[in-house]
């Protein structure tokens, strides 16, 4: 039981940490909550056993790091548009091409 909780706790804490450093940081919440709950479960189990496994500290450390990263990114990251040079070029090309096509068109007031 204890081993399973440690393994699952570590897996979810590591997933949370990995997600928090990627642009998918909003998805961190779910593994973060799971890791936190498993950390607490481990804490109570070890309290009963009167043992002090290091795993609790590591799980909570990973949870704190990923939570801090997620909060930091949510607060300070302003969305920024990437390179639009190619789009602007396509835009200009399309406009020039459209002008040529539209040269033959005469606006009909009926439509």
């Amino acid at each position: 039981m204890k081993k399973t909780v440690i393994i699952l706790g570590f897996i979810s804490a590591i997933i949370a940490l990995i997600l928090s450093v990627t642009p998918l940081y909003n998805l961190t919440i779910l593994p973060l909550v799971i890791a936190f709950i498993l950390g607490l479960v481990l804490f109570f189990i070890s309290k009963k056993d009167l043992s002090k496994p290091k795993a609790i500290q590591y799980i909570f450390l990973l949870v704190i790091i990923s939570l801090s990263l997620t909060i930091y990114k949510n607060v300070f990251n302003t969305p920024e548009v990437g390179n639009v040079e190619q789009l602007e070029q396509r835009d200009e090309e399309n406009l020039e091409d459209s002008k040529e096509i539209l040269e033959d068109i005469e606006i009909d007031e009926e439509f």
Partner: protein
Amino acid sequence: MKHYLFVIFILFTVKYHAQNTTIAAGEKLVFSASYNMSGLLTNIAEVKMETSEVKTSKSTLLRLKCSATTYKKWDDFFKIRDLYESYVNPKTLTPYLYKRDISEGGYYKFMQYKYSHKDKLIRSLKRKKNKDGKTWEENKIVKIGASSKDIISTLYAIRNLDIHKASPGDQQEFTILFDNKETTLIVKYINKETIDTKIGRKACYKLAVSLKGSDLLKGNNSNLIWLTADKNKVPVYAKFKIPVGSGELKISSATGLKN
């Protein structure tokens, strides 16, 4: 005589309704699109709606341009650089040329419709890229209905509707041409609502949008658009539900408005 007068009145009102009173050249609307990810909305792209005047030797047209660009952080995962444009009559918003130039995560497609309203047809051109990077073209002549429009000019036509005359529950159908096929878009006026936006607190017309016989935009008031209840009818907020999730479109800025 009475009947003739009635017909003249109807024709006059139809003609009057068709006049563009909302959209001017030089308008620029910027939106932020977000997608629902594990219950949290994440900003994914910037959407721009711009209008400009295009002059040819014979006439002046209004260019309606919509572009979508993913934010920098998403470019490595799924880069979107989409461009939609429609060249319309500035007075009636009738389209003459439509172009869709999309690049989505390595997928490229170009569609062009050249309208011939008198013959009720379009000359369509499709350009796509093969797996080995070579482009191929397909030319088609497609028969269309008298009121068929592309998606961009329809979007602007919705803004040009006399919503102030409508009562909750009223709906209007638009025939949209997408991928050489005609689809019916139903726009239903729900009610008036005041919402907070980045351009201030606005009284808005709440509209429900659905596609007839399609799974993409289902008709149970789950796709909503809020247009400001003024003469500009600026789309300030939109909520949509698609088979792969849900999202929102929020206005960031609006400049160059007509009224």
